[in-house]
């Protein structure tokens, strides 16, 4: 926990972080628990997500808005999937990266957005952070604890997978 306080220096950011905590802690737990099905693990994932949010507090302008909601949900989902993967290292149960993550209700989506919703979570997260939140590879690597090269590769693979889904769905 020593990490937190050195990352948030200005009074404005301190207040913003507290607001984010009280506004989204329930939703972040909901997302993490959906993936991990375990209270303790879900709380740990939320804790790790808050560390990342604190480290990158300058990324957030307005606390209560759809963009920030999607941002904290994406980070919570990512940290929960990391925790899930770490847990599966110790078990014999096979992990499939296609099967976990938020279930997106895509009935209202069409075209490219519909295909994006069908991407595996880690590809979807990269696409959202890059094209909706506007972060570059370096910023995404810090958020997701990946190397910049891995982010570049994931981005490239995500786009290829998206093309493949688009072709299957007859979108392009």
């Amino acid at each position, binding site marked *: 926990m020593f990490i937190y*306080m050195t990352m948030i220096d200005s009074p404005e950011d301190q207040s913003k972080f507290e607001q984010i905590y009280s506004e989204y802690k329930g939703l972040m737990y909901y997302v993490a628990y959906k993936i991990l099905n375990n209270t303790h693990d879900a709380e740990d994932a939320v804790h790790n997500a808050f560390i990342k949010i604190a480290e990158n507090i300058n990324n957030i302008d307005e606390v209560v808005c759809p963009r920030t909601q999607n941002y904290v949900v994406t980070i919570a989902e990512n940290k929960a999937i990391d925790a899930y993967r770490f847990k599966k290292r110790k078990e014999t149960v096979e992990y499939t990266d296609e099967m976990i993550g938020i279930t997106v209700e895509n009935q209202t989506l069409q075209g490219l957005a519909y295909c994006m919703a069908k991407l595996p979570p880690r590809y979807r997260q990269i696409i959202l952070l890059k094209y909706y939140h506007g972060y570059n590879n370096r910023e995404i690597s810090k958020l997701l604890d990946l190397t910049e090269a891995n982010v570049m590769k994931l981005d490239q693979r995500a786009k290829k997978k998206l093309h493949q889904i688009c072709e299957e769905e007859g979108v392009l």
Partner: protein
Amino acid sequence: MITDEMMSHAAALLAEAINKSLPAPCECTHDYSTGFERKMKRLMRKVDHPVRHRVLRAATSILLIIFIGFGAVLSISAEAREIVFGWVRQQCGSFYDYFFVGENRNATQAKYYPHWIPDDCTLLVSYETSGGEEFIYSDDEGMLVQFAYISNPSNESLHVDGVEYEKHKIRINNDTGEIGIATVSTETNYVVWIDTDQNILFYISGKYDEDTLLKMATNFLKSN
């Protein structure tokens, strides 16, 4: 052709759909455990007193250095260490996760550099990571060519998308490794090997045939 503008527009629609797929934040209530709440309260206090806690962090760092110093003095059975440390590969869905287990007795400060690259490679970026170094090139088709090594494995792991590849064992400069040939044209091939004397993991990926990749690997050498 999907443009960046189309991607941004679709990503915004997707983000909206994700938000709608979830309950509103005010509807999500969870009674967090006492431990979690305690940590968060401590956090809020720390946020209110950053300077005081920066001093505390410095003090903690000094204590940590002292503990590490004592740890180095302590001798532990070499046989026991032999059993518990080494690079481990774990399959996670469609990719492999390489991570180091145990204490690295042979940590090295040595640096490595690709001494031979194919003619169509252009360096995009190179940088040090927490456990090693990466060199990213682009080939003439715009595909990424990646050279990486991890010499301080306690800090880093490596993800390799290679589960569905055709794989076989290879030897690179007296070390053993594996080459993965992609089964679909959109993926890149890779070679990964381990210097077991120094516990260094090496990785190269690119859209090149086996002979070229092996030549690149053989020439991924220690910098002078």
